[in-house]
């Protein structure tokens, strides 16, 4: 299993509800925890990561700040449509460092993942990394 949510592995962020050119959504999949996507106000916020093809996935790891309510949905279609719920989380507030959240998803498949941030501990939240452990479905 490899991290399939990397630009270098062909993943793309195909939608993000905030865009500041200094903190673009591509920072989520660049493999670095020091660059990030920063939301620009209001909730909910969301972004969609598309993989090169349908993937078997079993684990999602997020590096964030100020995220509170989060839901993750998956789509198995070629286009990012027909999303279905995968998991819901309420994260804990962490002071002065990044939130690191490991989410076990029982062996499932996805071509696209949608992350919806429903609420935050601040007006603005940041997403530094999304690691998705997976491998292509053959």
């Amino acid at each position, binding site marked *: 299993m490899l991290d399939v949510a990397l630009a270098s592995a062909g993943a793309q962020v195909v939608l993000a509800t905030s*865009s*500041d*050119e*200094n*903190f673009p959504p591509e920072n989520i999949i660049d493999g670095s*925890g*020091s*660059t*990030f996507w*920063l939301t*620009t*106000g*209001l*909730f909910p916020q969301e972004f969609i990561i598309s993989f090169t093809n349908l993937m078997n996935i079993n684990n999602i790891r997020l590096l964030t*700040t100020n995220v509170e309510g989060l839901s993750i949905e998956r789509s198995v279609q070629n286009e990012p449509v027909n999303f279905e719920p995968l998991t819901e989380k309420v994260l804990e507030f962490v002071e*002065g*460092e*990044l939130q690191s959240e490991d989410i076990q998803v029982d062996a499932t498949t996805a071509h696209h993942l949608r992350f919806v941030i429903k*609420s935050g*501990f*601040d*007006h*603005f939240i*940041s997403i*530094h990394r999304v690691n998705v452990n997976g491998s292509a479905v053959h």
Partner: protein
Amino acid sequence: MVVLRAKCIVAGDSTVGKSALVQTFHSDGSHFPKSYTMTEGVEVCVKSVVIPDTSDTVELVIFDSAGKEIFYDHVKKNWDHPSVVCLVFDLSSEPSFHSCSKWLERIRNQKPEIVLPGVLIGNKLDLEQRRTVTPKFPMEFASSHGLEYFECSAKEQQNVEAPFYYLAQEFYKMYQTKAETITSMAM
């Protein structure tokens, strides 16, 4: 260039002129509602404010909320995730000034741990003869609650933009500070 979005909650007693202020600001002074139409719930409008000396914008999503108590249950449902607060009272009505602490508490209770920039506005400055609230008490109230105090007249289009510009700027400053804090934290 960045566009920020802030949910601006406008609250205060009925008939103090919240809708008049919002509509005058939203229409750049071309629309002042002379006759009173009671707001029943929440009316939403969007107004962009350009931050001086930048190419950045703050879009204020303004939630003009009913002041009549019977609508409060409904109003409250629309107040999740507030970004900035705009409290309004009528300079010719002391009770409307005293209600401001109640309105502020109600909004802050939405998310007590989050910092909400806010303004306190004394409206109807044009009714000089009927003025009963002197600046002293609102100024004290404002500074003890971290608010900025403004007096204006929606009717005469006097000082209507200043409080909204202030809120947009404060929100913009918070964003910049946050961006810096997170950048250094993630290094």
